[in-house]
């Protein structure tokens, strides 16, 4: 069987799974088209994240365990770009916050300059400490009252600066840009680290980004969440009140409520598919180009590539930024889909390690593999729970319904999810270490 046929069959298989989810309630399928589209939409977003990670790991061998941070930054971009600015927030403290941040940045620049200019010794330590302490005190003196001012404005609904009020679709590329900018900063400092040190530094930086989102209320409302973000598609209620739409739905024999929910979800699926295809095409072109060959050469033998005159550090920085930007785009898309930013829900099991499972299972180094892994693993992530319940019900069919063991097992069935993901990852790594669609 040729590679192309195998790839097509695997994609067909995932497609059939999603179709079955919509059309039949046999076994663990729910028989709801809404549910099928929900799975498909998040699957598409996950596939995009997987492309980003595959770019870093599959192409260049960079072990980035901070995906969650970039996804969250994408989400932040949606708030900053598409929400309306909070009235009065800028005059209350916006300017102060900007000034304080500039002051903070200047302190860091001054600290770096001290490191460069003053020769090593006690003097340097003293000057450095003085710069940092004075900088921090001044920063807090400007920052704290400004933040208090902004956060005091209607805190039940706002209390943050708000955004630019631009169309929400612009937030997607903006999410990519924001993630790319932060990736540049991180890459400049962390990419000099080797192997496990890099992995754990990125893991930590993602945690730092999340704590900033959780705590800086003036920016993201923190754990109070930003809800009701604008969306690129009409609201279901409006569609249901639209006589033309109702008539059209009746033509297809659909209930207007069902028709409107499906219409919106399908709209998202189309938008996401377009983004996915564009990024996939770009990733494929990059892989086949001389640039992609150079990346893989660096990945396979860094020393040799360096000897051939390739600037390994620069290339690593480049691909770190590109991959992170893709994760940022996906994060912005996900926040738009949810129409809310909830910093408390970002957790590394779901937004970092699960994406890694997708890339490895799909086949690292192969873009189609990453996409397949994203769709398939997401389907399983959702469906393992009903599968587990079904399995336990079958196994304990002989027991009475009040049996303590049976009750406990049924209650715990939902935790089969993590267990199964681990098992899948271990099985793939053992028996098909190059993934379902291996690198060519």
């Amino acid at each position, binding site marked *: 069987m040729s590679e192309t046929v195998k790839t097509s069959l695997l994609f067909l298989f995932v497609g059939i799974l999603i179709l079955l989810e919509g059309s039949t309630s046999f076994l663990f399928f729910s028989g709801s088209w809404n549910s099928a589209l929900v799975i498909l939409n998040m699957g598409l977003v996950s596939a995009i994240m997987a492309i980003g990670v595959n770019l870093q790991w599959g192409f260049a061998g960079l*072990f980035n365990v901070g995906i969650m941070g970039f996804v969250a930054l994408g989400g932040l971009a949606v708030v900053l770009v598409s929400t309306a600015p909070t009235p009065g927030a800028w005059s209350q403290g916006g300017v102060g916050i900007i000034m304080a941040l500039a002051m903070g940045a200047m302190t860091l620049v001054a600290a770096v300059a001290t490191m460069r200019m003053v020769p090593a010794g006690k003097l340097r330590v003293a000057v450095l400490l003085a710069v940092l302490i004075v900088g921090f005190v001044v920063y807090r003196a400007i920052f*704290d009252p400004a933040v208090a001012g902004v956060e005091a404005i209607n805190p039940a609904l706002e209390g943050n600066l708000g955004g630019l009020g631009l169309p929400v679709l612009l937030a997607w590329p903006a999410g990519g840009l924001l993630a790319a900018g932060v990736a540049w900063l991180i890459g400049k*400092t*962390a990419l*000099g*680290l*080797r*192997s*496990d*040190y890099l*992995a*754990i*530094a990125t*893991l*930590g*930086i993602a*945690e*730092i980004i999340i*704590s*900033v989102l*959780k*705590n800086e209320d003036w920016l993201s409302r923190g754990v109070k969440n930003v809800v009701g973000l604008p969306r690129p598609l009409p609201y279901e209620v409006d569609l249901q009140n639209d006589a033309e739409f109702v008539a059209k739905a009746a033509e297809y024999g659909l209930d207007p409520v069902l028709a409107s929910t499906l219409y919106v979800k399908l709209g998202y699926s189309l938008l996401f598919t377009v983004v996915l295809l564009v990024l996939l095409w770009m990733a494929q072109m990059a892989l086949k180009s001389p640039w992609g060959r150079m990346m893989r050469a660096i990945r396979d033998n860094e020393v040799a590539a360096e000897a051939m005159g390739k600037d390994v550090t620069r290339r690593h920085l480049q691909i770190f930024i590109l991959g992170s930007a893709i994760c940022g785009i996906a994060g912005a898309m996900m926040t738009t889909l949810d129409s809310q930013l909830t910093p408390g829900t970002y*957790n590394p*099991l779901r937004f970092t*390690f699960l994406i*890694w*499972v997708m890339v*490895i299972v799909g086949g690292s180094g192969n873009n189609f593999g990453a996409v397949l892994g994203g769709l398939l693993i997401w389907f399983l992530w959702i469906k393992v729970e009903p599968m587990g319940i079904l399995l336990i019900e079958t196994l304990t069919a002989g027991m009475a319904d009040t049996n303590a063991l049976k009750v406990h097992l049924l*209650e*715990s069935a939902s*935790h*089969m*999810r*993590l*267990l*199964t*993901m*681990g*098992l899948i*990852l*271990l099985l793939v*790594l*053992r028996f098909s*270490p190059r993934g379902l669609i291996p690198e060519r």
Partner: protein
Amino acid sequence: MDFLNALVALTNFVGVPAIAYGSQLALGALGVTLIYSVLRFSNFAHGDTMAFGTMVTIIVTWWLQSMGISFGPLPTALLALPLGIVSCMLLMLVTDRTVYRFYRTQKAKPVIFVMVSLGVMFMMNGLVRFVIGPGDQRFADGERFLISARDFKAMTGLSEGLAIKTTQGITVVTAVVVVALLFWFLNKTRTGKSMRAYSDNEDLALLSGINPERVVMYTWLIVATLATIAGVLYGLDKSFKPFTYFQLLLPIFAAAIVGGLGSPVGAIAGGFIIAFSEVTITYAWKKVLTYVVPESFEPDGLVQLLSTDYKFAVSFAILVVVLLFKPTGLFKGKVV
């Protein structure tokens, strides 16, 4: 007098908690470091290994409590600890046989081992949640305080109280004993020496007739012991929750790396550095300052450098800063 009060307040809110937390982190980081030096990979499943050992200990504790057995003023969990350690050891050995050994014989790259440990992490995490559920479990019993704040005030006549929880006392004593035993084992016994030889230079160790499988087995046994003890101490001191234990991975890694991966002394130093900086940077200094500065200079705010939610952020900021200046940690860790 005011100076003494300030000192007591500082010990009470910063010193004692940070020493206890630092000991827990140090024990965890020692486990990570041992695996890194012998098996040569960062074990992402370490937090969940701790959770597994602790979970077994908790279940045995509950069983003992239901039988009416207690340990007097000490927590019953200490009686259950050996069973927790043994079952954690069994789990480690089974995992090594079924999962890691295959890659060892293949001489797989370290990063493959890290991926594999991700899989193990998922499975252990699922297993723990499956058995005990995702909720919060408290299992500390026995006497709550070694010294309560009120007793301390009555004893010394100071206006600030000093409270030391029993669990904090146990943590520090246990940590000292365990670390002493570990260093004795590594430096004095034959097996310990062969572990260090294997970690320093694998080929040379193999040439001199050291059995690698034996070294690996002992490493897992020690790691299981350290992880269970660290996990139970943390659980007694705070509380047990599977997700918290997964998150503990972050400060533990930070501690091991700040010290330098592969260096046991570094792991201990790293644990205390991380713990002290987390506590001092997120502590509200107002109370201490009001004792030492003249009244007119008393601060209005809480004088908190960062809000407590930034705990994890602090440990990583330190990690990043240390790595910028010393790319392999303070005590010159290894790179594989």
